[in-house]
């Protein structure tokens, strides 16, 4: 015993170690496994209903199974507040709700009719969520969306996480996380963009599922098309027809009768599909303001140097080597040299956009020369057409943003940072708010093309 005491005296850290082990080991041995106590939620859906909020959780359940596949369960609970709905969900499944692995939060368009900050408040308080949890919106209810995604995962192994990762990296160029939403919300211009994924029925370019019975309100068993199960006024047209159409429909124009009837009559014949065409929603002061089409988003992306992989399609190109050919170019890299200045008291933003492009496809006639088939082919005509197209798209996007007083390009902050005194003077003389600043900026765009 004396030896033990001497050893402890010589190394008291050893005693500390033994005591810590003594405290931890028994609890660690008798404690149930984490998965037995916690329901691991991978996606959260928020909706509004008559009871208040409906929270839908896509929950990972760790059952042993022979196929070694991950099994998810979609659980829904309603309550007057989001936290109460979570508590109810916890009671329902008899496990703690663990949000540490939650990578997606979905809000329905109906929820976006009001300021969603109160709905997101609970999620924003979970430490790990705001940074890495992608926030997206959908045309149907979040519950229907998650039920669809669950089926999709079962059938095709395409999961929501992969889909969103690709979208945020290659299409949006801006992470639409809970945090980025708040960043826009708290910024002087109070605007942010939100990714938008829809579930539709019909001849569209989406990923379908065959078993729609589990998707309540959308599936064939309920006998309704998307317009029945989805939220009012959130229907969407044929995506293959182009996003401009979708935009018009988004802005309040209902589906044409023929389209509606075809969707309803076809019932289960036409599959439900998830559509990710790169469009997004413009959120202003926490509410949905407008729908930004793929083309409009692309217009904004021309001013974003991190954009790569954009595709430029030119129709009916005729020059010395081509005759009414269709050319498709891919932007391999994009460089933007910009200048912020005040000319005659007016804010001027000059962007020199350098596009490094490769010819991907050339659909012309037999007479087209061999030279035109080269991947580095760019004639003067092509240059002019691309330049015009890029400028048109930028112009259209800027007009859209200006109309909505939504400076998602952060022009106000950029000018304020670079030319503080002039910006303050300008704001005072014009008597405008930061939200209206974008309207007053003169954009000068120079497009330079480099074949690679």
């Amino acid at each position, binding site marked *: 015993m004396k030896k033990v005491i001497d050893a402890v005296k010589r190394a*008291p*850290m050893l*005693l*500390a170690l033994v*005591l*810590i082990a003594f*405290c*931890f080991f028994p*609890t660690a041995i008798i404690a149930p496994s984490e998965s037995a106590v916690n329901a691991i939620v991978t996606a959260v859906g928020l909706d509004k209903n008559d009871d208040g909020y409906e929270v839908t959780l896509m929950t990972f359940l760790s059952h042993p199974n022979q196929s070694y596949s991950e099994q998810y369960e979609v659980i829904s609970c309603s309550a007057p507040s989001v936290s109460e709905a979570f508590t109810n969900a916890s009671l329902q499944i008899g496990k703690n709700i663990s949000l540490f692995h939650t*990578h997606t939060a979905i809000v329905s368009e109906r929820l976006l009719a009001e300021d969603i900050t109160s709905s997101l408040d609970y999620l*924003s308080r979970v*430490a*790990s969520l*705001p*940074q*890495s949890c*992608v926030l997206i919106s959908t045309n149907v209810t979040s519950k229907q969306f998650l039920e669809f995604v669950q089926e999709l995962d079962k059938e095709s192994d395409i999961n929501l996480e992969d889909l*969103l*990762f690709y979208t*945020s*990296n290659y299409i949006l160029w801006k*992470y639409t*996380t809970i*945090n980025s939403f*708040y*960043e826009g919300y*708290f*910024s002087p211009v109070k605007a942010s963009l939100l990714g938008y994924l829809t579930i539709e029925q019909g001849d569209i370019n989406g990923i379908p599922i065959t078993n729609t019975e589990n998707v309540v309100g959308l599936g064939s068993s309920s006998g309704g098309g998307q317009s029945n199960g989805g939220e009012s006024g959130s229907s969407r047209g044929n995506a293959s027809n182009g996003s401009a159409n979708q935009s018009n429909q988004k802005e309040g124009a209902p589906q044409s009768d023929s389209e509606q009837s075809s969707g309803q009559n076809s019932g289960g014949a036409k599959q439900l599909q998830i559509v990710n065409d790169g469009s997004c929603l413009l959120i202003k002061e926490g509410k949905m303001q407008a729908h930004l089409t793929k083309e409009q988003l692309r217009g904004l992306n021309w001013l974003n140097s991190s954009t790569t992989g954009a595709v430029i399609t030119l129709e009916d190109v005729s020059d010395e080597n081509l005759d009414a050919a269709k050319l498709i170019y891919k932007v391999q890299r994009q460089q933007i040299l910009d200048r912020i200045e005040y000319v005659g008291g007016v804010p001027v933003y000059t962007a020199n956009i350098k596009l490094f492009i490769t010819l991907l496809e050339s659909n012309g006639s037999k007479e087209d020369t061999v030279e035109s088939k080269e991947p580095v082919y760019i004639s003067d005509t092509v240059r002019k057409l691309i330049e015009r197209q890029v400028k048109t798209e930028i112009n259209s996007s800027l007009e859209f943003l200006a109309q909505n007083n939504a400076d998602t390009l*952060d022009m106000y*902050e950029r000018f*304020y*940072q670079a030319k*503080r005194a002039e910006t303050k003077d300008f704001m005072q003389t014009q008597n405008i708010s930061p939200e209206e600043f974008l309207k007053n900026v003169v954009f000068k765009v120079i497009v330079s093309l480099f074949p690679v």
Partner: protein
Amino acid sequence: MNAKTISSRQTAVLASVMLFANKILVLPSLLYEYAKADSIFIMLLLLLAELGLLFIFFRLKRRFPDLSFYQIIKQKMGVFMAKSLYILIAIYIFYKILLVYNVSYVYFRVQVYLDASFYIFVLVFLLVCNSSVMRGLRPLVRGMEFFYYFLITCFVFCLLLSVANFNKFPLFFDAPAGEFFLGGFKHLFCFGDVLILFLLMDRIKIENKKDEKQILTYTLIVMALILILYIMFYSIFNHTSFVHKNAISDIITFSYRFTYIGRLDMLAIVLVMFLSLFQISVALYVFCDCFNKIFPSLGKIYGVITFDLIFLAFVLLSIFDFLQVTALGVLVVPYFALVLQYILPIVCLFFTIGGKHEKSD
């Protein structure tokens, strides 16, 4: 070198580790509420003040190479003043320990030990810190020295990863001057870590300018790293900076792409774990030292036991949890900090004017 003294390199490591205290987790978000992104300049200003304190320390050490801080005050201001000041310092150090403990506890509760019992956390923390203190300053600082490069590497790696999340430079010079200075003043309690060097000055061996330069270099490197952290933090979070209470973790877990790499914040967790333990252990050592100066007839063990009892009473009875500690810090502690961290060393600077080097009795 005396068995109780620490070398200049160990002093440099000690100063560097203590500089991180309370600055890399909750402070960036607290400062943002006052001064927005100009908090970077508050940090710069107060770090420069810290540097000034370091120069005062060097001067005092050169003038009184063998005397302790207590002896200097006793010689110049009398026993009563010395004891009174040491009582204040002991209370202040106790508060700093409570602060580091609460900030780390909240951090670990959120990041790692969701279900860990509060009692286990207190027990583990007290055992490790008590044990470190009982072993003495030198083994403790040698431990810090051993992990130093590992910790700095972790920190640098966190900063490098955060570059991928860089968003845009925040708006500078946007906060009103009043708010800027108020923010700085109210958070003085997170600074002044060089005071520890003053309190341990008789155990620090600085022989020449080269030693001073070494301490200065280490300190400057850490200051630069802290400043970079603040720049990255405000550049990543911008308008939402006030929401993010765990700066060093949040800057690396911000990006969606990193969720694919699993628990990348383990780097930050390990860093905070070591830093908290070292900072609390050193502060506890200084607390015990103050205790011994106030009650010279009692040994170190009494200081440790006293600390444990008061600490357990405060923590277990929830007298001071995270919110109360930070609220107290903003309301009362800045005045303590101003007197003990800044005015006292400046007063000591006057002691160094004139006269020859003085040695211990």
